[in-house]
């Protein structure tokens, strides 16, 4: 089966400052990949490279078997960025309007069809926020907002869900429920790439771990990560030999 994403010897720098150095990893269909590393380790940069938001200085990136630069099936990716909730604070947008955005890549310049509206309703129901659909998104709690963004990805019928620290500022109970939702979506076959600062949560939920600190210190299933020294290496020191399991 074609990998959902494949990165080969990817390097990226902000000016003279290397952010990601010589990273090679593949994400298989249906994986739940936890991307971890200390602050400033290049996790978000790597995710942006993978999604095509940044171009690598060198190396090759493919999404669903296509070079990322020419990948045009945007509806297959659902992305929840770190700053996704910033605009929600001041901009009057309802939850339904946000979830509808997931259909825009399908609809192009045409009006949303009945099928689009049905997909929006189904996505709202799946994440259990039907009763919040007409509420202004800024009036929702952090956990509810994240569900709305997940619903946007589901409405898009995304095969890959990329989340960058989605539960910052979310209370523990809502966070737990949110990760159960992610697990259930993963069981449906949706590939998930998650950046999360809480390593305990990632090792509990993800079936694969990529541990990064500019270099990739570990990539493999969660068990092999737990048994390895990658965590101490990545968080405790820099410039160590890369450990890479496939």
């Amino acid at each position, binding site marked *: 089966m074609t990998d959902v994403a494949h990165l080969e010897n990817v390097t990226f720098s902000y000016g003279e400052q290397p952010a990601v150095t010589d990273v090679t990893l593949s994400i298989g269909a249906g994986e739940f990949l936890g991307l971890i590393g200390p602050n400033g380790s290049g996790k978000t940069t790597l995710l942006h490279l993978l999604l095509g938001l940044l171009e690598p200085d060198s190396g090759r990136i493919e999404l669903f078997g296509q070079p990322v630069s020419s990948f045009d099936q945007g509806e297959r990716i659902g992305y929840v960025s770190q700053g996704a909730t910033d605009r929600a604070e001041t901009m009057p947008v309802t939850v339904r309007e946000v979830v509808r955005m997931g259909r*825009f890549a399908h609809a192009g310049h045409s009006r949303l069809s009945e099928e689009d509206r049905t997909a929006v309703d189904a996505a709202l129901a799946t994440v259990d926020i039907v009763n919040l659909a007409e509420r202004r998104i800024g009036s929702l709690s952090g956990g509810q907002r994240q569900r709305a963004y997940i619903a946007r990805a589901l409405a898009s019928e995304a095969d890959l869900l990329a989340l960058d620290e989605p539960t910052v500022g979310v209370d523990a109970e809502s966070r737990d429920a*949110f990760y159960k*939702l992610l697990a259930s979506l993963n069981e449906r076959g949706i590939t998930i790439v998650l950046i999360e600062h809480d390593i305990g949560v990632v090792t509990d939920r993800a079936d694969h771990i990529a541990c990064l600190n500019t270099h990739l210190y570990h990539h493999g299933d969660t068990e092999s990560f737990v048994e390895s020294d990658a965590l101490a290496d990545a968080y405790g020191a820099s410039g160590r030999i890369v450990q890479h399991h496939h």
Partner: protein
Amino acid sequence: MSEPTEFETDDASTDEQPKSGRADSDPTADSDPTSGRDTHTTGNEPTTRRGPTTEASATGISLIQRIGLAATVVLAIVLTGFVVAYWLRSYPLLGDVATQYVYAGQHMDRLLGTNVFRHPVMWQSVATAVLVGIVAPLVGVFLVHREMALIGETLAHTAFAGVAVGLLLGATTDWQASLLLSALVVGIGGALAVQWLAERTDAYGDVAIAIMLTGSFAVGTLVISYGRGLTAVNVEEYLFGNLAFVTGEGARLMVVLTIFVVIGVASTYKQLLFITFDEQAARVARLNVRGYNALLVVMTAVVVVGAMQVLGVILVAGMLVIPVAAATQLAESFRETLSLSILFGQAAVLGGYALAISQSLPPGGSIIVVGIACYLFAIGWSGSSRRGVQIH
């Protein structure tokens, strides 16, 4: 104008309940262990201010707003009718139509005790202002929520440089094209330059905006200074606007610009909304963000040139920002923001003209003052408990 647009009519589903069949058929919806957990209203969610339009928003745009929008469309069509009829008045039937407008103006003058509406130039002026009151908030709603509010001010100053270039070319060559056309060309060029700068520096940062704003105004003043004595045209009208300043050509240009902007926004509403709300996610969805951004700044330049006739360079940005800021205080959805922005835009324009005519004041300042009164009213009406839109 009368064509239903995406943002006016795309609300059929807002009051629909989810199709239970589809939701039920979704195995995850049934088996999801979290169902019913996180969506209970937890105690830690922020309290929503229930504004006066909240109930209406549950079913889309309220009836009052719909009536207001319909009245705005009718007013725009009637006034556009005059602009076209007066332009083509040498043709028999259209000449009669234009005359009827003037008769109607005479009646209005008698009723109101004024001496303004009998003059065709006033019809042109009102027509231009009403169209500005539609298209400025239409574009401004995206600018304000992208925190690009000052881009309108920048492009107005760029357009002023265009006027200056047009004046100089007119005085020193045989080139006889309109100054507004010159402003439009230079304004669009300035819009693309702003876009280019924004892509290469901090996105729409203060610095790029400040450089473009002062730079283009500096060029304008230098060109005017250089051409002084060569032309008798007074640039004061371009700076401050004037009731009697709108020419037939200016009004016709405004009609064309309005059609361009209304079609532009209606056909790209979804994309502009997505980019405004979450630009990164829109990029990941493979929307042509650069193209839509360029379209938005070009439409802004177009609106600015049209609005400059009535408001003047200095005040033109106010019409892009103030009605939207007022609407944001009250609206629950983005569509409602758009709808209320246009209504506040009309209130500012018509109220501003009433103030200007009755007190013999400049229209630009009057429109902006009435607009700000609307904004303060909206703040008071909303109870001001919600965090207001941040205007940068």
